[in-house]
């Protein structure tokens, strides 16, 4: 187990290193921040100072080594768009907002998708099934920003039930969370449905039926408990897509999270912040997957 853990750890570290290469390359080839950060009438001194301050006048490999050296210590430099703040601080201060939004979105999708999936599996081929699948499909068929704006018009402007945008209270969370969740709902509903269909055919369910266990107990207790494994294993991927999905939705709702920060930072060519966002995201993703791997290994020793 220790060896397995070690191997996984080394693999993750290598993956992370490759990601630093990619991120560094992408940010540095996407143009320099002068055009974004200085006014149209910037003087040559202003330009020269900024270039020098950011170390952009150094050879690229020196820049990378310097970047890597600092990055190992969690230091990505000072933000350029938000002067005076360290890039990592900017990102870490935004992380909770995105985690809250993502968490809420996942909660909503679970609360809606699991029952919907179960209902659609137990009533396969009926109107309920078609309806559930229809709802699920619509979520996948609409561009998320469009859905977000429609939600704003209907529920914030029209009905006045929620705030249009911004953050602060739980009410602010609802519309953006639904916008992100809807796509996930489609995925989860269909997963739950197919997993349930499989489990409902299993021998022990038939046995339980033969024993006269009531149908709701069979469905919600025996079957779902086993079927839930499939959507749960899917959660890691889901969490990842929640984070990236937030890029668009956070912009629509002015939600001050990581996705919004990433967009603003890229627009401003704020390399330190862009790099921090990607690395933080990658670390979270890799850690989550490491955890999943370890859990699997723990449950199923053959994997080791």
């Amino acid at each position: 187990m220790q060896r397995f853990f070690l191997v996984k750890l080394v693999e993750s570290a290598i993956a992370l290193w490759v990601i630093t290469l990619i991120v560094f390359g992408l940010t540095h080839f996407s143009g320099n921040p002068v055009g974004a950060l200085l006014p149209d009438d910037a003087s040559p001194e202003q330009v020269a100072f900024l270039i020098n301050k950011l170390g952009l006048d150094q050879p690229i490999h020196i820049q990378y080594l310097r970047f890597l050296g600092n990055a190992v210590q969690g230091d990505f430099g000072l933000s350029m768009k938000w002067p005076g703040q360290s890039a990592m601080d900017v990102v870490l201060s935004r992380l909770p907002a995105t985690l809250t939004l993502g968490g809420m979105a996942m909660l909503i999708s679970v609360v809606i998708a699991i029952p919907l999936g179960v209902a659609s599996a137990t009533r396969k081929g009926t109107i309920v099934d078609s309806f559930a699948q229809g709802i699920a499909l619509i979520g996948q068929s609409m561009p998320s920003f469009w859905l977000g704006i429609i939600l704003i018009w209907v529920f914030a402007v029209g009905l006045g039930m929620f705030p249009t945008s911004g953050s602060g209270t739980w009410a602010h969370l609802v519309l953006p969370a639904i916008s992100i969740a809807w796509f996930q709902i489609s995925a989860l509903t269909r997963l739950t449905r197919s997993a349930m269909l499989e489990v409902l055919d299993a021998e022990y369910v038939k046995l339980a039926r033969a024993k006269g266990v009531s149908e709701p107990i069979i469905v919600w207790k025996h079957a779902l408990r086993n079927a839930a494994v499939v959507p749960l294993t899917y959660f890691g991927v889901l969490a990842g897509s929640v984070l990236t999905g937030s890029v668009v939705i956070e912009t629509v709702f002015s939600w001050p999270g990581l996705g919004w920060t990433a967009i603003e930072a890229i627009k401003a060519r704020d390399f330190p912040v862009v790099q921090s966002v990607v690395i933080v995201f990658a670390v979270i993703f890799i850690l989550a997957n490491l955890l999943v791997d370890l859990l699997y290994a723990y449950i199923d020793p053959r994997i080791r």
Partner: protein
Amino acid sequence: MPNIRSVARRTMMACAVSSIVGTAAFAQNVVVAIDPGSAESNLYWETIGGLIPPNMQSLVGNDPETGVYDASGLAESWEHDEDFTRWTFHLKPGAVFSGDWGPVTAEDVVHSVALHTGDDSRLSGIQSLRAATVTADGDHTVHFDLPNPDPDFLFLHAGRAVLVVYSKAQYDAEGLEGYARNPAGSGPFTFVSRDLGNTLKYDVAKDHWSGSSPRYDSLELRFVGEPATRLAMLLAGEADIVSLPRELQPEAEAQGHQTISSAQASVQTAFVLSGLFMDPEGPGAEMGLPWQDVRIREAMNRALDREALIDVLYEGRAEPLVVFSMDPRFDGHVPELARRFEAEYGHDPDRARELLAEADYPGAFANPVIPIAATALGGSPEFGLMAELVQAMFADAGLQTEIREMDWPTLQNARLGFTADFAHPMRNAPVRPNGIGVLASYTEQLSPAYSIGSRELDGMGDRLIETKDLEERAALIRDMFTYVFDNYAHMPIATISAEVVANPQRVAGWTFPGSSSSGFSHFELIETAD
């Protein structure tokens, strides 16, 4: 230039009268939602200076109605020597910083200049201030000594706002960190909090030293990038004042909201050309840009139906522009060009086609395609649409075009590196005095990246910089604008005012001159509806 000091006096009297105000019955918070700026910091010099923080003041202000320089800033009066190289400002003796940081003195100004002109300054227009030697003369007098005559020095302080005054006492006690945390200012608001990328909160300064205070209690600036969301905020009652693209304004007005325009013209827009095209050895020649031929430039101008452009882009509410950067309010305006405009620049696709045929377009051109940069720029939401419209009009006249979508930093980097080979939308905001505008938009003197590459014009620019005599300067500026006009150097489009839409149940009115880069200022003059 009108007699500035008399205007200043008049404004001070107006202030004194308006300071007799009743207190609001309940706490009133005014929420203003606008486009986010390019950088955010409580250290003003780390931003490009688009928005003067409402708690801070510069030396000179703008009259809210006329936009003329007035004494609504920290200086009660000012004078200059004969050749405009020494400017002296007399500070208002009663001015104090918030948070008990004491009176505003000449030392504070000198200290602030040092901060603003540091290496890390990103402010627009800072070069002129950097060149100045600033000395305190007693507690309330400051001298700015300039290497070159600068009759437009007041613009730097007012509309361009390259200098806002921070407290030296606070700096001595708390350093830059104190500024970052809670910057003390002398303005009619006090800083409350900044939520990066989201909200800036201010309280109204109680018993402000100037004797006048806004008639509401707190101000909240919300930065929201998506215009549809800002409209929704207004309609849902979450924001009292929002900036909206003009095409969304009718929607808000239909719901009973009210558009408020800046009292004066705030922005000029144009379609401009890159590549130092007038320089036969410039990068434009290497790239083989078709608009090096004046006939092509005239054809491009003739292809534009400016009436339609103004209708579509500005809902018809704009003045046609004669020369980009030329404004009738300043010295050096050439009224004659407006009279010549219809005959020489008027919409005439047939004439455009004739010109193209004359120039043997596209046959004689190695590279006849005109790339058009479609770009989005905060505060100018119409730029993308402008590019599409111009493309359609060019195509109608027989010009070959290609749209290149790019963001502003990419465009700007291409310009700064002289690799830009496209035509693109451009703005002049705030509308600069003609002397500054003509240098910045066409010559290598202020913004080399935007030079048209004409040696003749650069020569006139060199002379302009050295000239002290106002008459002579005006004549030079007139010659320069005429040269630009005659050479079809750019495609002027419109002069517009800065506009916001307000909820009339919350906001009765707001007078602002439109003289700052963002167009917005004078938040203390927002009148709430009781």
